[in-house]
């Protein structure tokens, strides 16, 4: 289907089903039960899942295929957000021009940065992209927000004000981001007994965009171009010696991933028309690296999994406080209960980053292929257990992580 082989088609269909049915899947607990805090099916979080999924899929095209570790991808996300909000300010709240401009501007910006950074490889490349991103952050945060030339609105963040021109603003259009009148914030809540499922327009638009982005990523992975990028990863020197200039390929990969980041930034602004400089900070770049590594760099589904995983646990862990912990461990004797809660306390709530850092280190140390490799190992283990009695020759032979 769509020029994909059978395996990729089924992967695409699985992803499509998961995203389209997400409001059901992420809301397994009745809304009045104690487990309701583990529900993730509310619009804001679901939007973040898919938007960061797009971001990570794009980052993976650069890092997973070519092995160039960029530490400055958040800059493109930020640029995308800023350009989208400017479209809201100048034209109208319709998201189409905003997202399109976000992709174009982020693409141009990444062309410029990639052209310079890709002259160097390895650690130099990482540091150059980091320097560029920090510079963009400094520019957005203070330099470009002076009264004479206010492009970013500095610390406050860029937002739409009532006296903005909005030349194409229709009379009967809503005053929030919309798609031809369909507001991003409109949510239809389906109540089924104790369950409540939210169907949000913004989420579904992001989900459709993500499926298209994911489809394109599959095509890139399977194309000769993708093959060339993999060759750059495995041995760039040999490529150069065979008389092939690898720079256009890596630059193309860089620009594509920059455009994905811009798309994510544009969608982020479309969901909430506000763009702040902190989106460009290098911790934000680090986050997308974490997502990609955690899910499995170089695999198709890995980055999406990683993005979902991090955003879900960020949300859940931040909500757990001491009272919740005491509730869970109430069955233990009093002294032991307090002790267990004291042990766990630093890792939850505000300590989520500690857990994330530890988790990330564990993954890099023990599971370089991320969650996907973990899944494959688990599957191989289960298979070898099952086949033990049948004397099967193929056991233990696992697919290498791509």
């Amino acid at each position: 289907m769509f020029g994909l082989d059978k395996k990729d088609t089924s992967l695409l269909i699985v992803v499509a089903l998961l995203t389209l049915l997400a409001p059901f899947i992420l809301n397994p607990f009745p809304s009045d039960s104690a487990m309701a805090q583990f529900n993730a099916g509310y619009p804001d979080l679901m939007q973040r899942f898919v938007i960061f999924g797009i971001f990570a899929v794009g980052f993976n095209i650069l890092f997973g295929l070519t092995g160039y570790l960029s530490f400055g991808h958040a800059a493109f996300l930020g640029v995308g957000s800023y350009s989208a909000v400017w479209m809201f300010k100048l034209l109208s709240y319709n998201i189409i021009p905003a997202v399109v401009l976000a992709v174009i501007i982020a693409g141009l910006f990444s062309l410029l940065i990639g052209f310079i950074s890709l002259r160097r490889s390895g650690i130099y490349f990482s540091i150059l992209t980091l320097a560029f991103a920090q510079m963009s952050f400094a520019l957005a945060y203070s330099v470009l927000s002076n009264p004479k030339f206010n492009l970013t609105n500095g610390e406050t963040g860029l937002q739409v004000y009532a006296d903005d021109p909005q030349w194409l603003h229709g009379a009967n259009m809503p005053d929030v981001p919309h798609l031809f009148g369909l507001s991003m914030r409109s949510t239809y809540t389906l109540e089924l007994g104790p369950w409540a499922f939210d169907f949000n327009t913004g989420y579904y638009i992001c989900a459709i965009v993500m499926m298209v982005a994911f489809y394109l990523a599959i095509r890139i992975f399977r194309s000769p171009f993708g093959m060339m990028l993999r060759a750059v990863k495995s041995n760039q020197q040999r490529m150069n010696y065979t008389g092939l200039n690898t720079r256009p390929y890596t630059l193309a990969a860089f620009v594509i991933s920059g455009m994905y980041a811009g798309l994510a930034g544009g969608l982020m602004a479309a969901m909430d028309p506000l763009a702040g400089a902190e989106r460009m900070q290098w911790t934000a770049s680090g986050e997308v690296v974490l997502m990609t590594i955690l899910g499995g760099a170089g695999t198709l589904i890995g980055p999406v999994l990683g993005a979902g995983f991090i955003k879900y646990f960020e949300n859940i862990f931040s909500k757990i406080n001491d009272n919740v912990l005491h509730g869970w461990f109430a069955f233990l004797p009093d002294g032991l209960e307090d002790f267990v809660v004291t042990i766990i306390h630093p890792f939850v709530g505000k300590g989520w980053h500690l857990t994330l850092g530890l988790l990330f280190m564990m993954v890099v140390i023990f599971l370089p292929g991320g969650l996907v490799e973990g899944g494959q190992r688990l599957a191989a283990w289960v298979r070898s257990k099952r086949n033990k009695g049948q004397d099967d020759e193929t056991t233990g032979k696992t697919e290498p992580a791509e």
Partner: protein
Amino acid sequence: MDAFLIQILNGLDKGSAYALIALGLTLIFGTLGVVNFAHGALFMVGAFCAVTLQRVLTLSFETVDETQKDFLGNPLKVKTPYVESWFGPEAGAWIIDWAVPLAVLIAIPIMLLVGYVMERGLIKHFYKRPHADQILVTFGLAIVIQEIVKYFFGANPIQTPPPDALNGVANLGAALGMEIVYPVWRIVYFCFSVLIIGGIFAFLQFTTFGMVVRAGMADRETVGLLGINIDRKFTIMFGIAAAVAGLAGVMYGPINPPNYHMGMDFLVLSFVVVVVGGMGSLPGAVLAGFLLGILESFASTTWATTTIPGINQIIIYLVAIIVLLTRPRGLMGRKGVMEE
């Protein structure tokens, strides 16, 4: 002229911090070939050594002083730090006053130990892995260290005042007939860092240990074949690099109150410094550190910021980009280091 000198002085203290961190980064990179993203965290841990020592020294017990009354007429409770009761009030007060310089003494063994544990426990397993993995695991470690410090010390900056004797300002230009008034502690910091940098270079140049390390940096395999346990020496160098970063942090506390993310803030800039100086070149790291510090301070003058708004925020990155594009190996980079 006065203003010119002041700007150079302003650049020197920040430049010292850059130079010290970059020196440690280069030592680690030159010996072990590892890119240490957790080096900023070591700088921060050093600063928090000073904070901890200060807290320990000011631990006190309460006594009821019958001669003094508070405003309600009850006997006043007086807090006396333990050190004052042990060493007498004057010596005790002096010790508390000099907490930051004294922290240097405890920071050296602590940081050596931290560096040793880090190398043996974690970094050792990453020599054969790609640079990307090294970056990622040390990045994760940096997050973990940062969050642990945040858990124990909170998110707000903690004041660590310098000793009273070094707290004022001094007129440096008096001998030259000029008016250059400058905080004493910053001058102390500069002298301290020059001392450490000189010490490291002397150590590498004039001791047998340093000679072996230099030989190992040039050709690790041959040194190993000559029957020298080079891994052990490199582990110790990692500890020393950690100690350098830690000391830079200890003494930086009075200039800028330590908070848990100060390491990350410095790390990015220190990497830029290393790259500008040339990967693997120790003199390059020091030179670039001071150079960029001074450039940054010149870019912060009102003249510069009114001509190009915000130039002080981006000057270092701009310089780094220009240097890398015109001299890809950095100012003093050697051929063959990180060229793949």
